[in-house]
């Protein structure tokens, strides 16, 4: 068997917006959505590093400054940013890296969580072309892989129905010659990477497949809650900050620097609390709650299985359950989210959720006291909601509700 050269570089695609994840992606690209207090992209970078690669080309576009600002102190990798001005497709995005890649490399979407083991297996595959695949119960949102005689015969991008069982994770090991194929396809106006890969298959090149271990995608806002839950179970307890007397902590709990947990708090892990937070007296946090940086939770509040992003204030006597609260939101006291299994309308489709869901609130909303939100409601960014209001309908961004 011939030797395959070492893979030394990774190209990470991080230019897309993630429209289905609005309102959260109105101000940041999908790759920056936080999962267990870390942007998705950081999971990708960490996994790349742990798999032994030091050099990353990161293709950025939509709200790139948010990425660049966040990773300014990231020292584990050498990151080179390349801007894709128009988001024409994944093939086009990869093409932006052409001048920087002369050897075999791996390609990863920046918006899916992946572990280092899977990447390692992919790198070590003795083949020029290899793809990480994953069994998926609902393949229709992805590129579905079909086999013939144990070889990939076809990749069908987002089929109308759930056909096939393996999907492409979009993570590839590729030779530098792929850029010639990309160029050729681009000349015909083809910018989708899976189409380019199909031409490679059609040219009788062998593409190895490797099964991914951990791979997770976030499609809709409520997926944040589930993915956060899964990832927070993988964390080990780590406590800094100040913990007052009579605080009960069970299970793995992470508490960041300069955070203060006041007396009487009851915290059941997995629970993650960021830096510089104040968790007021007698606050109860239940699994799997993640709280970002600079958050203040006022006394007697209960939070369960929720994602509270950075710079949020939550008033006293509130109940936040199975919910996502975006950056910079403020709620007054006695704020309640009702959580239930429910049906949510999105993109003209009705999604029936099999687990309870509370509310999802975009960035920088100001909510006055005694507000109750019905299950499954999405509230946009920069909304203002008056006191004593009951929210039963989705609220678009920048709306005032009195």
């Amino acid at each position, binding site marked *: 068997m011939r030797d395959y050269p070492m893979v030394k570089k990774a190209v990470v695609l991080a230019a897309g917006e993630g429209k289905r994840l609005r309102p959260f992606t109105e101000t940041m690209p999908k790759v920056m959505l936080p999962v267990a207090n870390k942007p998705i992209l950081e999971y990708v970078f960490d996994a790349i590093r742990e798999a032994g690669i030091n050099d990353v080309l990161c293709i950025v576009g939509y709200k790139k400054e948010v990425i660049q600002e966040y990773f*300014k102190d990231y020292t584990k990798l050498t990151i080179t940013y390349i801007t894709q001005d128009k988001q024409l497709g994944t093939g086009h995005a990869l093409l932006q890296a052409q001048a920087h890649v002369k050897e075999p490399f791996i390609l990863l979407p920046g918006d899916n969580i992946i572990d280092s083991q899977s990447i390692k297996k992919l790198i070590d595959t003795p083949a020029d072309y290899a793809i990480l695949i994953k069994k998926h119960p609902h393949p229709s949102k992805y590129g579905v892989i079909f086999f013939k005689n144990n070889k990939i015969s076809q990749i069908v991008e987002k089929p109308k129905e759930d056909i096939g069982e393996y999907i492409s994770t979009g993570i590839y090991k590729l030779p530098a010659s792929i850029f010639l194929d990309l160029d050729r396809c681009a000349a015909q106006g083809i910018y989708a990477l899976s189409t380019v890969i199909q031409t490679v298959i059609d040219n009788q090149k062998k593409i190895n497949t490797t099964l991914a271990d951990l791979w997770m995608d976030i499609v809709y806002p409520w997926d944040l809650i589930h993915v956060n839950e899964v990832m927070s179970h993988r964390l080990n307890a780590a406590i800094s900050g100040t913990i007052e007397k009579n605080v009960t902590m069970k299970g793995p709990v992470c508490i960041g620097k300069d955070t203060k947990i006041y007396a009487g708090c009851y915290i059941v892990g997995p629970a993650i609390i960021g830096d510089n937070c104040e968790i007021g007296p007698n606050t109860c946090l239940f699994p799997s709650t993640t709280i970002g940086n600079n958050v203040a939770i006022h006394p007697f509040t209960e939070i369960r299985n929720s994602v509270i992003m950075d710079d949020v204030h939550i008033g006293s006597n509130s109940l936040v359950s199975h919910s996502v609260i975006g950056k910079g939101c403020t709620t007054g006291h006695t704020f309640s989210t009702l959580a239930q299994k429910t049906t949510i309308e999105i993109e003209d489709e009705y999604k029936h959720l099999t687990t309870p869901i509370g509310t999802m609130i975009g960035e920088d909303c100001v909510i006055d006291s005694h507000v109750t939100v019905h299950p499954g409601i999405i509230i946009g960014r920069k909304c203002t909601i008056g006191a004593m209001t009951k929210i039963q309908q989705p609220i678009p961004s920048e709306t005032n509700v009195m």
Partner: protein
Amino acid sequence: MCGIIGYTGFREARPILLDGLKRLDYRGYDSAGLAIIGTSLKVYKDVGEIATIEKKIPAMKGTIGIGHTRWATHGGVTKENAHPHLSCDKKTAIVHNGIIENFQPLKETLLKKGHIFTSQTDSEIIAHLIDDEYTGDFQEAVFAAVAKIKGSYSIVIVSEHAPGKVFGTRKESPLVVGVGDNENFLASDIPAFLKYTNRAIPLDDGELCVITHNTVTIYDAHKKPLKKKEELITWDIKDAEKSGFPHFMLKEIYEQTDTIHQVLRGRLSEIEETITFTPDVEQLLATNFSTLHIVACGTSYYASLVGKYYIEKLTNIPVEVALASEYRYYGNHNPNALVIAVTQSGETADTIAVLKEAKNSGQHTLVITNVIGSTATRVADSYILTQSGPEIGVAATKTFTAQITTLFLLALKTATLHHTLEPADTYTYIIQLKDLSRHIRDVLQRNDQINTIAHHLKDATSAFYIGRGVDYPIALEGALKLKEISYIHAEGFAAGELKHGPLALLTTETPVIAIVTPSPTYDKMIANIGEIKARGSPVIAIAEDKDTEIDKHVDYVLRYPCDTTDLSCIVITVLLQLLAYHTANLRGCSIDKPRNLAKSVTVE
């Protein structure tokens, strides 16, 4: 400030010195040079930026050497005036930052003794002076020479007479030892060696340091060896890189959502409704002083003017703000005044001089600075750090907003200590401070709109900024940002002053940027805008999101999201920074290294 580096160790000195100089070069320089000792001492120096000179520098072998990037103060920008400077026997080379005040008499004496000078710099005399004192013990010669010079300096020296050694000494100009493994460094700033070691020892005034590849010995001015503790540098070299942003300035503008939190970090409690500083700062603020004197230079001076507004509003204590270079000679040394110095680098020469004199005359002193271990923190009674991380762009951005936020915190703390504020108001201010970051984030989202408006500014030869109250110093700062990076002549005025002169300068080609906030003087601002419109000048208003009136009066509106009048000036600053940035960018200016400017001015 010039950049200085010295190295002795196991590696080739040339790439280390060049790399170090490049890390200092971001401050903007006009010439550079190296001296390396291999088999003998060799020197190369030239005019230009280090990146340009690098290609011309020949291979220079040796593991010991010194380097310098110069920003001219004495003598023109010429190859001869570039450092290092040599002694007559060409065995000793020195690099110097600062000013030798008594260089004329020293030079005359040395000339009489037959020394031949090749440059017009004050620095060159140091090499000749050491040479003149040398009688077999090089270290003694360095001591003797340093004792004869007056002024401010940091000096690094190598000589064939002292193989394996690099000497360094400082007075009123920064010099730091970098302690590595089997290699040691001397540099005017930490980033120069941070790639190789994070262990640093800042030298104090009058100290002299001798490093070899495996020893660091520090002496006081009386030649007595000192034991000094190493400091671990926790920020990383990556901080000094651009992270994909086209300029450090833009990166630092975007960092402000974070730096504002860093200023507040550990100092603000929403639950307890308290503000906390270190005990010595709190003790100082609780003192019964009758007045406050704030001294600063440049951008820090404008931050101080905002500080005056805050302190007087919240505490009723009268505040005097002065430029350090003026206060130093003309200020009154009221013993009941607390003197607060605001300096980003903690090394600003005039500001430090004020602190020293204030201390000598028995005044209490407090410094607000970004750099721990800087001269200012060691001179003043206490210090408050702005905790903003290193700022690379010559135009101050994140450190300015951090200074204002710190001054607001200081005003708030002083008010609670002197009981001049209702607890409910304190809580409101705490929430407003904590919300600042999200308002800044919101302004950053409007980057594209600001860029569009910058197109209306880019062809101007002159622009005016006006504001009232707390927005007046913001107008000054906005104008400073524009002029220093885009080279458009810009002036800030208190809006009410327009008719007392500046109106005469307005033409249809002079854009006016008017900061119009919902304050009691809103109508006055509208009236001022009317005066300007009557002269046909285009007006760009900076107005709050909810202001529906302003569109009727001006040509363009840039909006900001913040309904808290006192702190909105911080949000507006970010907007004006972006406006200046985009204007300069459209004009193709060298944004991170504006001509004729250096980051911190350690000469008077």
